[in-house]
C-alpha cells in the first residue's frame, strides 16, 4: 500500500481519488444534478404556467418538502424572506391597481383594494415563492462544478463549459483583486469608505485597474489555453461521472412529461383546476 493520492489510479476500473470524485452525500444532494435540475425546472414551469391556485401552491409545497428533506428548510425560508420587498410590491400593485377590477374591498384615499386584485396578488406571490424555493433548493444542493461535469458528460461543449466554469471561478478572484486594489488606493489617500457619494467616487479608480488588468491578461490566458490543446477537435475526456440510475432517468421523464401535460391542459382549458 502507498499513501500516494494516485494509488487507486492503477485499479481497474479507474477509481478517482475522493478529492476529485467529490461524490455528494446527504439526502436529496445525492440525486443526479440532472434530476435536481428537472425538479427545479418543473416546479418553476408549473407554478407559472398552470392557472389558478393549484399549480403554484402544489409546487411551493413540493419545493418546501424537498428543502425539508435536504435539511435546508431554514435556509430556504431565509431566502424567501429576502424576497419580501418584491412580494410587497406585487401585493400593493395588484391589490390596488389591478386593471378592470370592480369589487372593492376597502379604500385608502384615492386607491381601492379589490378582491380580484388581491386574488391575483396572492397567486403571483405563490408563483414567485415557488420559483424562489425551486432555485434555492437546486443551488444549495448542487455545486456548480457537479452540474457542469454532468452536463459535459451529456454532451455540453468544452467552450460552453469553460465560459460558465471560468465565470463562476472568476467571481471570488475578482473580489480578492478588488480588495487589493481598494487597499492600494486607500494607501494613496483615496477615500473609498464613508458617505455614499464618496463611495461612488471611489468606484472609478477601483474599477479601471480591475477592468484593464483583466483585459491585459486575456491574450496571455488565450495563448496558455491554446498551449494546452484547448482547441483540439472531438469530445473532451470526462473526468468525473456523477451517479445516476434507471429509476432517476424514469422519474425525470415522467416528471417532465407530467409538467408538459399539466401546462398544456391548463392553457388549452381541458384541465380545470381550482
Amino acid at each position: 500500500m502507498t499513501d500516494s493520492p494516485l494509488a487507486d489510479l492503477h485499479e481497474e476500473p479507474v477509481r478517482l481519488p475522493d478529492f476529485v470524485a467529490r461524490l455528494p452525500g446527504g439526502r436529496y444532494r445525492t440525486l443526479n444534478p440532472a434530476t435536481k435540475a428537472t425538479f427545479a425546472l418543473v416546479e418553476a414551469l408549473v407554478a407559472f404556467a398552470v392557472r389558478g391556485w393549484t399549480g403554484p401552491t402544489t409546487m411551493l409545497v413540493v419545493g418546501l418538502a424537498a428543502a425539508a428533506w435536504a435539511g435546508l428548510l431554514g435556509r430556504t425560508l431565509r431566502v424567501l424572506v429576502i424576497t419580501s420587498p418584491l412580494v410587497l410590491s406585487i401585493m400593493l400593485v395588484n391589490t390596488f391597481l389591478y386593471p378592470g377590477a370592480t369589487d372593492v374591498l376597502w379604500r385608502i384615499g384615492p386607491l381601492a383594494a379589490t378582491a380580484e386584485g388581491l386574488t391575483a396578488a396572492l397567486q403571483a406571490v405563490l408563483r414567485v415563492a415557488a420559483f424562489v424555493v425551486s432555485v434555492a433548493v437546486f443551488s444549495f444542493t448542487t455545486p456548480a462544478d457537479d452540474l457542469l461535469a454532468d452536463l459535459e458528460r451529456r454532451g455540453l461543449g468544452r467552450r460552453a463549459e469553460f465560459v460558465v466554469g471560468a465565470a463562476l471561478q472568476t467571481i471570488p478572484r475578482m473580489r480578492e483583486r478588488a480588495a487589493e486594489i481598494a487597499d492600494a488606493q486607500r494607501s494613496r489617500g483615496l477615500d473609498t469608505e464613508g458617505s455614499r457619494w464618496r463611495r461612488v467616487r471611489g468606484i472609478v479608480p477601483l474599477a479601471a485597474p480591475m477592468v484593464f488588468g483583466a483585459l491585459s491578461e486575456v491574450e496571455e490566458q488565450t495563448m496558455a489555453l491554446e498551449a494546452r490543446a484547448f482547441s483540439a477537435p472531438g469530445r473532451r475526456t470526462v473526468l468525473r461521472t456523477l451517479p445516476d440510475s434507471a429509476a432517476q432517468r424514469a422519474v425525470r421523464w415522467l416528471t417532465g412529461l407530467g409538467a408538459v401535460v399539466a401546462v398544456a391542459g391548463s392553457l388549452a382549458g381541458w384541465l380545470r383546476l381550482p
Partner: protein
Amino acid sequence: MTLRLVAATYRYAGAAAPTLHDVELRLEPGRVLGVVGPNEAGKSTLCLVASGLAPATIGGHLAGSVTLDGLETASLRPHELAQRCGVLFQNPATQLSGTTRTVLEELAFGPRNLGLPLPEVLARVEWAAAVLGLEALLDRDPQRLSGGQAQLVALASVLALRPGHLVLDEPTSQLDPQGTRLVGEALGRLAAETGTAVLIVEHKTGLLARLADEVLVLDAGAVVRSGSAAEVLADVALEAHGVEPPPAVGLVRALEAAGLAVDPALLEEAAG
C-alpha cells in the same frame, strides 16, 4: 526531436518593422538553451515564434523557417503544436485554466482536451506530478498556491501533454529565491531525465549558469552572441547588451579588481 529556427524574421500585425530579424537557433533533445537580453530585445517574441503561437494564434507575419521535429510550425494546428512544444509565460495566474477545483484536475486539463482515454489522462497526470515533485499538492486548490507552486503546476500542466520541447518566458520572474530554485531544479531534472529540450528566457543569469548548456544573447531582435553557457555568461561584453553577469562571475571580477589573483578555471567554474 529538434527545434530549429532558420533566418526567422517576425513582424507583429500592424507593426511597421519586424521585432525579430534573421534569428538562427537549433535546440537538441535534452539540451537547455538560455536566452538573455535587455528589455524590448524581442525575447518574448522569440518564445511566441519558437512555440508556433506566432503567427498561428496572435497573427503577424513570419519569414524564414521554424520547424519542430522537422515540421514547419505554420503547418501545424494549435493542438498539434501543443503536443510538440509546451509554452509557459511569466505570470502563473494566467497559466492556470481557472476552471478547476484541484491541482489534479488542472493537470488533467490538457490531456482531457485531447480526448485521451481516462486511464491515459491519469497516467500523464501522475507522471507530470512525479517529474516536478507535486504529488503532495494534487488535492490543493490551484488558486490558493504560492507563486512558485503555481508556476510548477502550470509547468506540469504543460508537461502532461508530453511535449518534446519547452519554451519558457521568464518563468521565475515573479518567484522568490526558493520558488526560483524549485523551478530551476525541476527543469534541470526534466531535461536530464526525459530528454526534453528547453528554451528558457531569463534575466536571472545565476539560474542560467546552473541550468543552461548554451546561452544566446538577443538585442534589438537579433542574435548578437551565442555559445556555451560558461563562455557567454563570463563574457565581459555581456553588460554592454544590458545583461548582468551571474553573481559568481561578478564576485570573481570584484576580487580581480581588488588585486586578488583568481584562477581563470575558477571563473569558468563559477559561470558554469
